[in-house]
């Protein structure tokens, strides 16, 4: 059902239409949600006021209920480009902190997931004994442990980066493990039989057949794992005491009622997530080309 010929062209116009609709609704909602406070203030001033004053007011509040898109864009721009990179007001600084934990957690999670998958495929004990627990672990809201892990590891002297990475690692190993198990088991029976006729050892089979066959599954899981790792890093920054990172910025914005700060931190987190998954996708495309897949 999906077109492969000109996907960009097919989707560009509708996406722009939907985005435009979203922005328009956003502006309208800003007027609607901020109106009570603004109208109260305008009444207090005493001068006659109409729609123009109301709308202008709702789109330029300091602590709005819903900031207007341009306010968020402005704050974001300032925090990114007009602030020193090492200052605690810089979104780049916070994004960098979160990025570090995300990438480290992602790498650890991938390694753990792949190792577990290789173990499960080669050992009946792990396959029967461990795999059901791995699948069951998906149903457990592990993210709830995040604050505790950070605090406990922190009290043992580990830097917050480490504890956040541990949380992210735990979150992402699951999709990688499940996906890789499927991938390592994906080769045709015919291909496996061919390896038997060559009297290939298990290690040779692993590197020459199973791992290459598992690459598409690896990348599919990697995209999910990267997004999950980011969530893990952000939630890991939530316990009180965390000063740096996008999660901390969200939390401080929430404590001090700085709505616009919250929104621009959220935008930064969204951009970070999209960029990271895009990086995974780019790696996937490069790998596919190296492995001779069809364009």
């Amino acid at each position, binding site marked *: *059902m999906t077109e492969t010929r000109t996907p960009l062209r*097919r*989707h560009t116009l*509708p*996406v*722009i*239409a*939907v985005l435009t609709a979203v922005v328009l609704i956003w502006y309208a909602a800003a007027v609607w*949600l901020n109106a009570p406070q603004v109208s109260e203030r305008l009444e207090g001033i005493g001068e006659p006021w109409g729609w123009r004053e109301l709308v202008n007011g709702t789109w330029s509040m300091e602590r709005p*209920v*819903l900031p207007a898109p341009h306010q968020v864009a402005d704050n974001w721009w300032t925090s990114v480009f007009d602030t020193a990179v090492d200052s605690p007001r810089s979104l780049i600084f916070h994004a960098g902190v979160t990025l570090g934990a995300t990438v480290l957690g992602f790498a650890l999670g991938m390694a753990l997931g792949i190792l577990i998958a290789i173990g499960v495929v080669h050992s*009946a*004990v792990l*396959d*029967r*004994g*461990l*795999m*059901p*627990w791995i699948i069951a672990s*998906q*149903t*457990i*809201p592990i*993210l*709830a*442990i995040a*604050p*505790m892990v950070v*605090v*406990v590891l922190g*009290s*043992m002297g580990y830097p917050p980066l480490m504890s956040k990475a541990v949380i992210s690692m735990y979150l992402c190993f699951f999709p990688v493990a499940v996906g890789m198990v499927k991938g390592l088991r994906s080769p045709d029976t015919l291909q496996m039989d061919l390896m038997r006729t060559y009297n290939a050892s298990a290690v040779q089979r692993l590197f020459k057949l199973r791992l290459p066959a598992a690459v598409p599954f690896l990348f599919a899981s990697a*995209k*999910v794992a*990267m*997004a999950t790792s*980011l*969530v893990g890093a*952000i*939630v890991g920054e*939530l*316990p009180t005491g965390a000063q740096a990172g*996008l999660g901390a910025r*969200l*939390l401080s*914005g*929430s404590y001090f*009622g700085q*709505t616009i700060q*919250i*929104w621009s*931190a*959220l935008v930064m*987190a*969204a951009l970070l*997530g*999209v960029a990271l*998954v*895009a990086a995974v996708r780019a790696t996937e495309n490069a790998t596919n080309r190296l492995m001779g897949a069809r364009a």
Partner: protein
Amino acid sequence: MKTGRHALTAVAVVALIVVAAWMLNTVNAPEAPRGKAAGMVWNTLIVWLIALWWTLRRLAALPARHRLKWLAPAALGATFLYLWELLVVGWDVPRVLLPAPHAVADALSARWDVLWPDFLQTALAVLAGYVIGNGAGLLTAFAADRFDFLKRGLLPLANLAGAVPIVGIAPIMVMWFGFEWHSKAAVAAVVTFFPMLINALAGLAAVDAMHRDLMHTYAAGHAATLLKLRVPGALPFIFNALKINSTLALIAAIVAEFFGSPIVGLGFRISAEVARMNVDVVWAAIALAALAGSGFYGMIALLERGLTFWHPSYRK
């Protein structure tokens, strides 16, 4: 003979349990040596582990359809809990760092009067958000399926949303809907919306060309084709989303509670007790959340089996 093999395995399991009980008992005794001084226990443990691996191999060798095939994962799970208890008690691990399973169980029963209302509060948010999010996702999928322009506009954005940490909207939701469960339900709803939208659309589109042609030869209208062909065919995809969303909604509600909650809620309890370093209560709350999460997932899986029994994945 088969029964001979099974008998040997059964004997091994019993022996393992007896030795395990002995080790735990030794270490639990009030004046018992702990840590490095309990060398005898640790030497026994090493031998015990080797015997355990041997026994697990035999348990794992049971054929897949055997009645007792659950023994292997159950044994591994029980071993995990046992080792946790033994090592924490035997090495005198500080409670603040990692409490023993029995301490967690104690905390669970001691603080039940607080944890149960917490659970109810969170469960309310989870269920409300789950229903709203999945419902909205399904309806939007039907609309996008009907109007191709909408589908082409929404689908890339929905896929993009998968990369965005949506739980981050929690502080905004708290600001809009207050500290009560409504804000947590809102976060859960938004989080569950996108996976349902993507999966439902994929399911509706996954219809065979042959089936579509067949409906065409019956001159069946859009509604009849939708109802009789595409919705039943989309059910496996929809259930896939429902299962994923069951965990996502729970996580979303708990994390949202980290951002601001009245004085009830599992997430609130976790962050409050973390601040007080009552780690065993934290573990108890998490255990409760884990049980609830698995139970929720299990119910949906059962429902899925009932409604999509016909799917090839159920036939081996």
